[in-house]
C-alpha cells in the first residue's frame, strides 16, 4: 500500500482506541495517583498520547492530547486546571515533542528513542502545564518548581517504563508479521 498522508484508517482507529484508554483512566481515577503537592495528582494519563505519537505520528498524538486535555479540564478538581489554557493547550504539544524526539533518535537506537520520547513527552506535560500555571498567575515559581520535581520526575520515570514496555511489545508483534493478518487472536 502506498504511503498515505493525513488520517488513514489505522491512524483514526489507533487514535480512537488510545483516547478511550485516556478517558477510562480518567473516569475510573486509575490514571491519577494522589500526592500532596499543589498539583494534587501525579498522572499517567499522558502516556496514551506519547504512545500514539510514537506509533502513528504527531497528528494522532495531538488528537489524543486534545481529548486528554478536555477530560482533565472537565474532571479537574484543582482550580488552575479549570483554565483551558492550562489544561488543554499544553497537552497538544506532548505528542509533537515526543514524536520529534523519537524521530530524531530513532536512527541510532530505536529502544533509546522510545525511552527518551517517553521521558520528554512527560517532561513536556509537566513543564508546559506548570509553566502555564505560573504565567497565568495560579502558582508562584517556587512551589511550581517543587511540584515539577516531586510530581514530574516520578511521572517521567513511570512514563518511560510503560511507553517502553508497550511500544517494544507492539513492535515485536509487528515484526512477527501478525499485523493485519486474519489469524490475529
Amino acid at each position: 500500500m502506498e504511503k498515505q498522508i493525513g488520517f488513514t484508517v489505522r491512524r483514526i482507529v489507533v487514535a480512537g482506541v488510545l483516547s478511550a484508554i485516556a478517558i477510562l483512566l480518567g473516569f475510573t481515577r486509575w490514571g491519577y495517583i494522589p500526592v500532596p503537592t499543589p498539583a494534587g495528582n501525579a498522572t499517567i494519563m499522558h502516556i496514551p498520547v506519547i504512545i500514539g505519537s510514537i506509533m502513528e505520528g504527531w497528528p494522532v498524538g495531538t488528537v489524543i492530547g486534545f481529548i486528554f486535555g478536555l477530560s482533565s479540564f472537565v474532571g479537574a478538581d484543582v482550580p488552575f486546571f479549570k483554565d483551558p489554557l492550562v489544561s488543554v493547550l499544553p497537552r497538544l504539544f506532548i505528542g509533537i515533542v515526543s514524536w520529534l524526539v523519537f524521530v530524531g533518535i530513532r536512527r541510532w537506537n530505536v529502544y533509546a528513542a522510545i525511552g527518551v520520547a517517553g521521558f520528554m513527552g512527560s517532561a513536556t506535560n509537566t513543564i508546559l502545564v506548570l509553566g502555564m500555571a505560573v504565567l497565568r498567575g495560579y502558582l508562584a515559581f517556587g512551589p511550581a518548581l517543587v511540584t515539577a520535581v516531586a510530581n514530574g520526575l516520578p511521572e517521567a520515570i513511570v512514563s518511560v517504563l510503560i511507553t517502553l514496555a508497550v511500544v517494544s511489545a507492539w513492535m515485536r508483534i509487528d515484526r512477527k508479521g501478525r499485523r493485519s493478518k486474519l489469524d490475529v487472536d
Partner: protein
Amino acid sequence: MAGDFELTRNITIGQYLPTGSVIHRMDPRLKLLAAALWILSISLCHTYLGNVAGLCVCLALFALARIPLSYGLSGLKPAIPFILILAILQLLFYGNGYGPSGQVYFHWGILRITSASVRVVVVSTLRFVEIIFAVSVLTLSTSITELTHGVEGLLRPLGRMKVPVHAFALIVTIAVRFVPTFAMEMEKMMKAQASRGAEFGTGSWWNIARRTRDVFPLIIPLFNTALVRAEELALAMEARGYVPGQARTAYRRYRAGGRDIVMFLAGMALSAALVFAPFPF
C-alpha cells in the same frame, strides 16, 4: 474487595438506555452543544449555592430523560474513594498552597484549614458529581450513531478550513464506544492478576511507590490488547470499504425542529444563569 473488580457495572459512559423521552429525541447537535455549555458553566461556577442549584438541575435531567438515578449513582461509585482521599489531602494541605486567603479555622504545624480550602474541597466534590451526572445523562440518552452525527455536524464549519472533521468525529466515536469494552477488559485482567496472587488496593494510600507499581501489570496489558483490537477494527473497516476523507452520505438526516430549539434555548439560559447569577455564597 470483590467490589473493586466491578468496573463494567460502574462505568456508565458509552452505554445507551432507550426510553424515548424528550431528551432522547432531541436533535443530537443541539443536545451536544447544550451539554457542552452546561458542563462548561458547571466548571466555572465557584459558589456553594450555585453548585447545589447545578446538582438539582442535573437530578431534574435524569427525571426528564426518564433514566433511573441509579445509573448516575453507579457511575459515581468507583470514583468515591479517590474523591475522599483527594478531599482529605486538599483539606489538609491547601491552606498553605494558596496563602493566607480567607478565615483560618484550624492551624497546627503545616496543617492549615481555611475557608478557602474548605470551599475548594466542597465545590470540587459537588462539581465532580454534577459533571458525572450530566455526562451520564448525555451518553445514556444518545446512541453512538447520533453522537457521531452530532460531533460531525457541530464541527462542519471547520471542514472548510481543511480540518479533518469526519476523522475527528470518528475518533471521538471510537473512543466513547471502546470505554466500556476496555473497562471489561481491565476487569478481566484484574481478576486474572488477583487469581495469581496480586493484590490491588491493599497498598496504603500514602505508599505512592507501591500504588504506582500496582498499576503496571494492568496498564501494560491494557495497552497491548487495545492495540490488537485497533488492528482488528482497522482491518474490519477496510474490509467494508471504508475510505477516510471520502464524501459519505448518512442513513438518517437530522433536522432541528422548533422543540429542539426551545430546549436548546432553555439549556443555554440555565447555563448562563449558573455562571452569571449572583449567588450569595
